[in-house]
Structure formats: C-alpha cells, structure tokens
C-alpha cells in the first residue's frame, strides 16, 4: 500500500491530472459505448415492431 490517505491517492504523486485523465476517459468510453448500443437497440426494436404492425394491418386491410 503506497497511499496513506485518499487525497494522497488522488494526487498520484503530482501526476493526478494525467493519470486520472487517462483512466477517466477510458472509463467514460467503456460506459458510453454500451449505453449507445443499448439505445440503438431499443430504437431498432421499436422501429421494427411499428413496421411489422403496419405491414400486418396492410395485409388485413
């Protein structure tokens, strides 16, 4: 264990900005990417369901 306090851990021996800048952006990307895919999935599902329902209605009409 090299950090005697949480603030010391944040300071990261003076390199805090660079270390947390790197890890932060990486974490951000790893959160945003799955979110965007899920959003795209929901949009595709609702769009396709609407299309199928429209086609079904067309066949009956």
């Amino acid at each position, binding site marked *: *264990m090299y950090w005697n306090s949480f603030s010391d851990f944040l300071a990261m*021996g003076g390199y805090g900005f660079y270390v947390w800048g*790197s890890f932060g*952006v*990486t974490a951000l*990307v790893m959160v945003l*990417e799955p979110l965007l895919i899920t959003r795209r*999935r929901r949009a595709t599902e609702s769009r396709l369901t609407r299309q199928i329902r429209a086609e079904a209605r067309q066949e009956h009409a």
Partner: protein
Amino acid sequence: MSMINWFKFSAPSTFYPLAGRLIPVFWALFAILALAGLWVGFFVAPTDFQQGEGYRIIFIHVGASWMSMFTYLVMAFWAGMGLAFNTRLSGMMASALAPTGALFAFISLWTGALWGKPMWGAWWVWDARLTSELILLFLYIGFIALTHAIDDTRRADKAGAILALVGVVNVPIIYFSVKWWNTLHQGASVSLTKAPAMASIMLWGMLLCALAMWMYSLAVALMRVRVIILERERHTDWVKELLAKRSQ
C-alpha cells in the same frame, strides 16, 4: 467442435441467442479482470524511481494499443471468412468490431499523449508506435466510412472485407516504414518503447488490464452484432416472432 456444427452457429438466427447468453459472461469476466488489474496497477505495483506515479498510465495505454491491433486482426479474419464462405454473419461481426477497435486506438493515442506530456513535455510525440497507432485509427475510420457509404449491406460487407484484408497486409509495412522514418530523423532519443524497467508485477498489471479490455470488447461487439442482426434480418420470420414476443 467439428466444422459442421460450427457452421450451425454461423446462421444469424442460431447465433443471436447464443450471443445473448455469452454477453453477461463476458461482462462478468471483464469486471473481475478489471478490478484485479486496477488493484495490481495502483496498490501492488511499486512507485517507479524515474517516472514516479505517472507511469501507471502504461497499464491501460499498452492494453489499448494491443487491443486496437488485435481487434483489427480479428476484423480482417472475419472479413476473410466472409469473402471465402460467403456467410452473412462474418460481415456483421467485422462491422460490429470496427467501432470498438477504433475507440481502443483513440484511447491508446489519448493515454499516450497524457503519458508523454509529463514525461517528455509534449502532448504529441512522433514516436514510431504512436504514429502507427494514429495511422491504424485512420484505417479504422476508413473502414467505418466505407461500410456506411454503401447502402446495400451485402456489398458493404464485401467492400469492407477487401479494405480490411488490404489494410492488414499493410499494417506491418506501415509500422516498419514509420519505425525506419522515426529512427532516421530523430534517433531513438524520444520513444515510448523505453518504458521503465519491467518488474514482473507490472507485467501482471498490464496483462490483467489487457485481458479485461479483451473481455470488454467481446461483450460490446456481441451486443452490437445482435443489433446489426436485428436490423439486417428484419424480414425473416424468427425476427418477427422475437419482436412480437418482446412487445407483448
């Protein structure tokens, strides 16, 4: 698994549920490996006498670089399979992997810059590996741009496949020429490859982070490929049933 039933999974309809079951597994593996990697990276690995704490960026920088290269190779593999066996799923896998690979290339460049700034005082260093990484990012963007520019998905997959295969042949040539160019003009004074002496514990940290990133890219690629399958197979009956069940 013998070749025959391996093809069974190459049909989108059978691959879709399989991918669905695998995604949570990969997310779990990612979580375990990531925690282990961060733990080793921050709490086990010693302070470097030369670079202080700043060197800890190396754990994700090297992992991201490996992953950006590895993902391109996997993409080229699926591209080759798609052209050879004309299976639709291979093209979908290649298109699913490209954005993730591009993001890893971006992360590698970003962390490289943030690591270079405190160590060499410059955000961007014309180091052989960083420059090749930048070119690899261009290759990814070229692949994504080409596949999105073509409306017919079959032609998009095949065109993307050719570009990926041509690209994968050129990556070593590009790396070699950039390395030659770098040593010629600058001499090897400034280069990220001279990372601090690799204590075995640091190697473990890097390996864990790289494996975590691998699990992450598998999970994300499978999620994206399922969406692509839905979009491209919307006229099939199994997709209609699936959506009908989903919307009740």
